[in-house]
């Protein structure tokens, strides 16, 4: 099948159009960020002066820079722990035989289906028992691993080239050394994908930090932003600007990691 030049051009145009439509709401975000008040939301124009005013207001207020810092700590903390812990567990589940493997995998899959809302109160009790209310560890540790993360790494690790692991064993390398020296480099795309996805998830986590942190000094962006936006009283432009600024760090991270997440999401779908 030899694609014609016209076919290619048509396909390219259509795809570009679809992607453009997907990016329209992002533009709407920019437009809202420059809206002057709550009745002026529908416009699609961009008012740079208004936007600048909102920006200086946002960074001039005490709260926002602090929320930004807290979000960075929270998201980085969770993402790093997740990579280390879920990475290890995912690899073990896929490549090593150890007692309790089946049980652990069943728990992981079961947890995937468990609604986080219903464990909110029991989890709060656990964290309180540990004395972690009002602390970063109270916000970070409950998300230090995830069923999704273990599942993702396991799926990827299933398709690691057997021969490579085997030859390392023949060479007499210990299992931990094989994991660190052979598997981790090969798992890098999956681990960095997990890093990205968990960073994004925590950047957007509202409920848990709100419940567990009683000091505004600990609040991350989603909680801080819902402060800006209450039922009867909000400045649309300011909230829009805050939303826009909030979206920048995840976007940058995504572009930096782009090379990896495409490979990481291949999941070893097909054996080569």
């Amino acid at each position, binding site marked *: *099948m030899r694609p014609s030049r016209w076919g290619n051009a048509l396909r390219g145009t259509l*795809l570009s159009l679809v992607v453009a439509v997907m990016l329209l709401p992002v533009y*709407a975000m920019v437009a809202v960020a420059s809206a002057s008040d709550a009745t002026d939301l529908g416009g699609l124009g961009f008012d740079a002066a208004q936007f600048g005013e909102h920006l200086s207001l946002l960074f001039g207020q005490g709260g926002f820079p602090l929320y930004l810092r807290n979000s960075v700590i929270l998201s980085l903390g969770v993402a790093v722990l997740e990579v280390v812990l879920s990475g*290890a*567990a995912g690899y073990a589940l896929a490549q090593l*035989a150890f007692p309790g493997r089946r049980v652990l995998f069943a728990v992981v899959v079961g947890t995937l*289906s468990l609604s986080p*809302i219903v464990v909110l109160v029991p989890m709060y009790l656990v964290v309180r028992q540990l004395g972690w209310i009002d602390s970063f560890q109270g916000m970070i540790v409950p998300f230090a691993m995830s069923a999704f993360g273990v599942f993702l790494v396991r799926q990827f690790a299933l398709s690691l080239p057997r021969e490579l692991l085997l030859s390392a064993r023949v060479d007499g390398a210990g299992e931990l050394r094989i994991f660190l020296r052979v598997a981790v480099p090969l798992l890098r795309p999956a681990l960095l994908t997990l890093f990205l996805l968990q960073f994004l998830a925590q950047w957007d986590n509202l409920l848990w930090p709100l419940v567990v942190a009683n000091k505004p000094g600990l609040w991350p962006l989603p909680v801080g932003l*819902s402060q800006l936006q209450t039922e009867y009283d909000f400045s649309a432009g300011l909230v829009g600007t805050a939303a826009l600024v909030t979206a920048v760090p995840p976007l940058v991270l995504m572009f930096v990691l782009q090379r990896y997440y495409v490979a990481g999401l291949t*999941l070893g779908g097909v054996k080569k």
Partner: protein
Amino acid sequence: MTLTVRLPGPATTVSGRGQRWAEARAGSLLALPAAVYFLVFWVVPFAGAVWLSFTDYELAGVPAWTGLDNYHRLLGDPGFWNSARVTALYTVASVVPSIVLALAIAVPLSRPGRLNGVLRALVMIPAAMPLVATSMVWSAIFADEGLANTLIGLVGIGPQPWLTDERLALWALVIMTTWKHLGLFVIILTAGLQGLPSGVFEAAAIDGAGPLRIFARITLPLLRRTLLFVLVIAVIGAMQSFVPAFLLTKGGPAGATEVLPLYLWATGFGFERMGYASAIAMVLLVAMLALSLVQFGVLRGGDDG
């Protein structure tokens, strides 16, 4: 609760007791943090929730054992049935179009080329947009004079009350979540497609098979495992979806977007009937596990790659 997922056996060529012992030790060591973590933060809270579902716990006092009362109450609770219906509808409405759409975009997008490379980067942008921060922007998009109405105006459809029409509101949520997740699905599928062996396609093309036939007979079956992954995360995501409705419609208008997790939230934290809310969560959990099993079963088939 064991899934019928076959775990590949450990490498046995370098067999012998020593190897098995080394593996067990390394495996236990690597999995130990996971075991402790899941025990403390999920199994124990989960056991707590199971127990609460048999009690009258109202976020105060000592929970009293009430047996199956909560489950019995479910049967006659119109709010629960409404939410179950809304969740089923929402799941189908958001999973099917987003996977079909993702496939339709991924197939041409997986071809090499500089334009495609750029588009693959752009398509992920919505996935990086935090929903909580941008929900206000979405209510502006769905407002009377908002972007959604401007767009449908281009094809000659009059303005619609997106968030206040009980037939449309659910679709407004579907649009928002599809927008958010489509990029991720496209990238997963693209990656899967790019990993397919090209030889098979060439052979099929030589045999004179048309593109649609190739897609149905070769691409789809080969892509099964990737599709399964996308399907599982899409279905679980849709059934647990709480944030879009919580932020955008609060379950309205007239209960049209009151998805089960939202009803769970209202029951637990609004009405303070945590025992009853736990029972609802158990039903949701069983439904999701059953669905996951069906998906594994259907898409795994005999060979699991």
